[in-house]
Every structure is written in structure tokens, then in C-alpha cells.
């Protein structure tokens, strides 16, 4: 068991997607400890939208439109092992150059400044099935 280290962060939220902005060293440590990730990152291209979360129920996605801003902003998605960018939800992402805007059909836009972000989907506890699960919108 590794030694516990308290981490402070800034939180951004759009609906069920929580983006935790960590400093670079905490970010690297978090990915390494929680996902065993070191170099499994994906640099976006203009052809694939940087989807951060998929709407399982509505089909609406929380996404950064690549054509508009991705290339100049330099967004890198960090995928867990065996996951594909644009198809699966990343565990983290990096905004390198300029602010990017996260858009969703049912929520207002969220502007994210450059930085390293860990991505979490909010969870709910279904007391009828007695299971904790990610919120699906």
C-alpha cells in the first residue's frame, strides 16, 4: 500500500462530467497510481472529436470540437489500457496551449484553461438495485 498523499485541486463540472485540474506532478502521480498509465496518451487530430463522455441514454456527448479549437489548443487525451480515443471515455486530458470549450446539448458551455485534468463521471447509488453506478445522461 502506497503512502497517502493529500491532493488539492480545482474542479470544473458539466452535468455528470467532473474535471479535476491538478498540477503536473500530482497529475502524473494520479495516473500512475490509479491507472498504471505513463505514456498511453492520444493526441487528437481534426478528424476525431475529443469526446470526454458519451450520453448513454440521450446520445448527447460532452466534447471538445476538434475542428474549431483542438489543434491550436493542443488537447491530449489519456486513455486507459485497451481504450480507444473517440470511442471510449478518457481517464484524463491535457490542454496545452489555449482555453478550450466543452460543449453539450443539454448543458451550458464550460471553458477550460490550459492544464492537466483528471476526468471523473459522477456516480449515483441505485438503492433499488443496490449498486453504485456512473450517472448516465
Amino acid at each position, binding site marked *: *500500500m*502506497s*503512502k*497517502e*498523499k*493529500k*491532493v*488539492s*485541486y*480545482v*474542479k*470544473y*463540472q*458539466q*452535468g455528470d462530467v*467532473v474535471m*479535476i485540474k491538478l498540477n503536473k506532478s*500530482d497529475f502524473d*502521480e*494520479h495516473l500512475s*497510481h*490509479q491507472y498504471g498509465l505513463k505514456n498511453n496518451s492520444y493526441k487528437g487530430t481534426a478528424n476525431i472529436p475529443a469526446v470526454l463522455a458519451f450520453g*448513454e*441514454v440521450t446520445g448527447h456527448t460532452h466534447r471538445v470540437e476538434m475542428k474549431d479549437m483542438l489543434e491550436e489548443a493542443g488537447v491530449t487525451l489519456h486513455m486507459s489500457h485497451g481504450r480507444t480515443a473517440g470511442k471510449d471515455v478518457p481517464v484524463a486530458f491535457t490542454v496545452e496551449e489555449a482555453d478550450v470549450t466543452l460543449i453539450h446539448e*443539454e*448543458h*451550458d*458551455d*464550460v*471553458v477550460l484553461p490550459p492544464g492537466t485534468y*483528471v476526468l*471523473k463521471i*459522477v*456516480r*449515483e*447509488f*441505485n*438503492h*433499488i*438495485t*443496490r*449498486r*453504485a453506478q456512473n*450517472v448516465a445522461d
Partner: protein
Amino acid sequence: MSQIKSNKLHNDNINFSNYKNKYLNNKKIEYLIERGNVGQIAFFKGETGDRYSIYVFTKRSKDVVEVSKIWNQYGHGTDEGVRIAVIRKGVIEYNSGEFRAQSWVRYETAENIKQLSRQGIFNTNSPLKVNYVRSDYVLRIPKHDIKLCPWEGIKINLKTGKVVQKAPKHAINKLNTIMNQDKAQRKRNYIANKENTNALKRYRDAGGDTELARVWNPDEAAIALNMSKMDWSKIPMDDVFRHRNATLRSNIIEHYGMNAIMETLDYDVVDVNTIDSRYYRLLNVLIPDFSGASRGFNEPEEYRGLYLEMINPSTGESHFEGVANVGNNSWEHGLKEATVLAALAWRDNDASSQTTNNWSSDRPDSETYVKPVILK
């Protein structure tokens, strides 16, 4: 595995190979008891599921055989073992005298009776059985109509197969408790099975395919297609509490919506809070459970769950989301307190986000919540 050699004490021609056991199902041990020399031992490994235990029977005097249990740790040698029973004049007294719950080995009396009986340490004509029933062990010796909860110091006559003492009060009370628990649980299971069976029939009659929900990783597209073709008028909303299958419950919630289901339930408001002009209520909701599917054995009949009522900041719509209940110990990933802030912290995974150690406790309180700088 026996260390028993020829018996020099007896002036007859009976040795181990031509000895016939008269009362014990384990010939080796009976021979040690009846004809073994002082200092001689016999031993065996535990049965399947107990293979790391070694049971050693040592003849201490003419009428006394001590029984010890040794933990044969994989790759780490053996421990010193503990005495778990003594056999005096054919009567075995289970008395470890040293309960070591911290060890991987269980030294409880009932467990020892069970494991030794699996190796034939019981009267041939009076087989015994030790089962775990609901919350404790029950020893049964059908031939003598014996049913009891084994206690530390219980004595069983190996020659007659009878328990030689009267059961102490605490053992009688324990047995009564177990039997009552068992009766109640069986009744509960009967009702739950009936409710579940009827709900499944209604689901199928409405055109639902219950087989789609019976797999580990359900095909969501196939379920969605099936749900779109179902006649939902045949499925009452409260069937959500009757199904045992979680996927079928989820399908009904998806059809009716959690808000509609919540309107039918009783609840208490346990906390209210306004954060950045957003209004939240934490509700303690009474969840009916006709199926008993999700109720743990020791859980009360009445189950309540915490729900957070919130307003979508972008659309202004109110909706409910369940959050974990207040956990009673550090192993439960529930809230530390029933507050809106703790519920929000649990919902946002704040406790686990605040540490790089993924083994840390995940039980937030109000202090844990990190307010978003932007929430849309």
C-alpha cells in the same frame, strides 16, 4: 502418514494392519486411542478446503490423547500449533483454550468438530454433521436427535456418539436465535420467490425478453429494442421492487423514470443546502423491497436509501440521484454523515480524488466536498 508402530503393550497378535475399528470411523485414531503407546502420534491433513491444517493426535497417557492443529503455511513452514481437543477414555472434549481469530486458521470449536468429523472422528453408528446456518454453526447427530450450537468445552462420547453434557444456556439461546432467523428468512425467501415469479410472468406477458437480462454483460442495444416493443401497460410501476434481476429493475426505472417512482415513495428530508444559489435536498427514502433480492441477511425489513434532489443548473429541471447511505465502518464506502455536502462529495468522487492512494477510505463528510469553480 501414520507414525504408529507395533504395539508392545498388548500381548496379543493384533497390530495396526489387522486391527478392526469398533466405534470410530477413523481406524488410525481409534488404534492410537485403544492400543497406542504413550508418546506415539498419528496425524493427517485437513480435508478439501482445510488442506493447510495438520491435525496431530498424541498419546499422552494410557487414557489420554491430545489433539493439536498446526497451520502448514505455504512457503513459510509450520506454526507451533494449538491444542484443540483432548480425548479421555473415549470422550473427546473440544477445548482449544486458545482462540486465535487473527490467524488464517479457524480454531473455533464448531469448525474443529466439523473438520475432524470429515476425517472420521465420529462414532460410526452415529454420524454427525456440522452446518453453518444463517449466523452460526449447528451440530446435528440425527441418530440421537441431537441439534445444538457447539460450545467451548463440549464433550462427545466417541463410543456412543452422544453429547455427554447438558447444553449450557448460552448455547440454547444461540440455537433458538438461529432457528428463528432461519424460519424468518425462509418465509421471506418464499414470499420473494413468489413476487419475483409473478413479476417475471408479467414482464414476459408484456412482450419483454427476460433472457436478455440474465447474462453478465447484457446487450444494451437488444434490451432497448425489446423495451421499445413492450406493452408497458401490463407492467405496474412497483414491479421495480419485485424483480430480483437488477437489469429488469433498471429497465423499469428507465421506462417510468426515477422521478415518477420517487413520487410514490415516502421520505424524510434530512438536510437542505443552497450552494451558489443552487438548492439541494437530501431525502431519506423508504424503499419497498418485495423480492428481498437486495436485502442482506441482517438488514432490517425496512430499507431506506439517501437521495439527493437537485436542479440541473442548465435546464432548471429537478431530479433525484441516489447516494450511498451513511456507512458504519471504514470498509463501507458510504457517507460519514447525512448532509448535502457529504452527498455531493460522494457523488463527485471527491474523497478518492483527494489522495493519490487508491486504497484510501472513500467516506466523505461535509469538509470533503470541493465546490466546482464552474458548474453548468
